[in-house]
């Protein structure tokens, strides 16, 4: 009789502890909070922490609020390097398309919301922060001949956010370091020494992301993944996925071989087109309804 009860109890506890990593982080955090709130002593806290198996931490453990601050800083770095294209009508047009696309993505709700901004640069470039800030250069907008092509550019960037490529660019050791510091902080009020340490880790995190975003570029597979996400998104909203192919064909002509932009950080447009067409139908010219083309030319005709 007792055995039966024990069996059912152990099955129950096994099931409830199915995720070791979650349990470990919960233990660390709960321990720190318990200690901070004065429920347990320092030595008790220490032994509790030791019993929870140490495992490496994952970037997914950052809360949406922390991702927001990471994204803001990445955005501030991008805007320190590039200046904004301060044209209200242009940015409003880009935002209504971008934000509508984002709502149809698999990650529509994000802490501070999706926001788009045009950068005053001839480079062919775009950046997406983990918090939903998306930047596109005038040079990249010049590769778009219709609204469907512009939607494709924005959908590709939303694809990077949805697939969390930015957060994955943070070095693993840094993720563990940051999350451990944050967990140990618990419910205590932070002292200036801890704030300084955390700021240093924060700075490293931002450097990891911007280094990939601006200099190194993502892996080819990530770029193809973002293209695939873009195709799905365009179809959902009602834009023609061939807009992406048309944009890439113009980009091919506009890219300079020695450029420090997409020429350096992205697979060649021809390779991207080939990859898109492997999984989709053959190219057919994008039919653009007159009012759609008229508003596109009004907003971006002189970009």
């Amino acid at each position, binding site marked *: 009789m007792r055995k*039966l*009860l024990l069996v*059912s109890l152990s099955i129950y506890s096994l*099931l409830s502890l199915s995720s070791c990593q979650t349990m470990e982080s*919960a233990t660390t*955090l*709960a321990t720190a*909070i*318990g200690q*901070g*709130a004065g429920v347990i002593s320092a030595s008790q806290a220490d032994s509790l922490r030791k019993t929870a198996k140490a495992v490496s931490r994952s970037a997914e453990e*950052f*809360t*949406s*609020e*922390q991702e927001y*601050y990471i994204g803001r*800083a990445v*955005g*501030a770095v991008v*805007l*320190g390097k590039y200046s*904004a294209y301060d044209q209200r009508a242009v940015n*409003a047009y880009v935002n209504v398309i971008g*934000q*509508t696309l984002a*709502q*149809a993505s*698999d*990650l529509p*709700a994000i*802490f*501070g*919301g999706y*926001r*788009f*901004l045009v950068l005053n640069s001839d480079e062919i470039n775009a950046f997406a922060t983990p918090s939903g*800030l998306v930047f596109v250069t005038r040079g990249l907008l010049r590769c778009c001949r219709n*609204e469907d092509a512009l939607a494709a550019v924005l959908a590709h960037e939303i694809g990077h956010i949805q697939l969390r490529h930015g957060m994955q660019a943070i070095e693993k050791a840094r993720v563990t370091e*940051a999350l451990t*510091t*944050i967990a140990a*902080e*618990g*419910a*205590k*009020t932070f002292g200036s020494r801890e*704030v300084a340490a*955390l*700021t240093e880790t*924060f*700075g490293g995190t931002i450097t990891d992301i911007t280094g990939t975003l601006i200099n190194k570029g993502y892996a080819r597979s990530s770029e193809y993944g973002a293209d695939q996400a873009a195709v799905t998104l365009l*179809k*959902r*909203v*009602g834009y023609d996925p061939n807009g992406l192919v048309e944009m890439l064909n113009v980009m091919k002509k506009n890219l300079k071989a020695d450029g420090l932009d997409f020429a350096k950080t992205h697979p060649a447009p021809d390779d991207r087109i080939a990859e898109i067409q492997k999984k989709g139908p053959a190219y057919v010219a994008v039919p653009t*309804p007159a*009012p*759609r083309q008229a*508003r596109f030319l009004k907003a971006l005709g002189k970009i």
Partner: protein
Amino acid sequence: MMRRGKSILVMVFVSLYVVFSGFADTPKTMSVQVREGQLRITPSFLAEIIAKPAYGDRVEIIQDKGPWKKVVNRGVQGWMHISALTAKNIVLKAGAANVQTSATGSEIALAGKGFSEEVEKQYKNLNRNLDYAWVDRMEKFQVSPKQMQAFLKEGSVMPAEGALK
């Protein structure tokens, strides 16, 4: 003895059922993990927003429809997208009375801790070549569901059925 054994077996199965069914479903209460939640009248992003639950608010889930959850927040019923919610209990004020009770079981996230406004301030002070002014301006670029609807209609952009739902 036989009867006792049977009734215990039944108990075991009942408890297993409870555990498994609990795993299959979304938790009954979840927390809002975005700065300003959007409670909508129907499960669609083009639907009217009837309330804006705050970050950390607990909502009760009363119905599931794909990625959409029908919830109750402060007495108001409406639909929220799953990406706006987390199973974690978001504790808004560190050291507050609810920290002790919530530390016992469920996973917790402390709002305003870790990479926070305070850390951002320090980071700004240490790095001169940053432009946060434009980041702040960007955050004000808001587009309402009504504007989205009108824009799609004007350009004859027709969402696939259910795409924005």
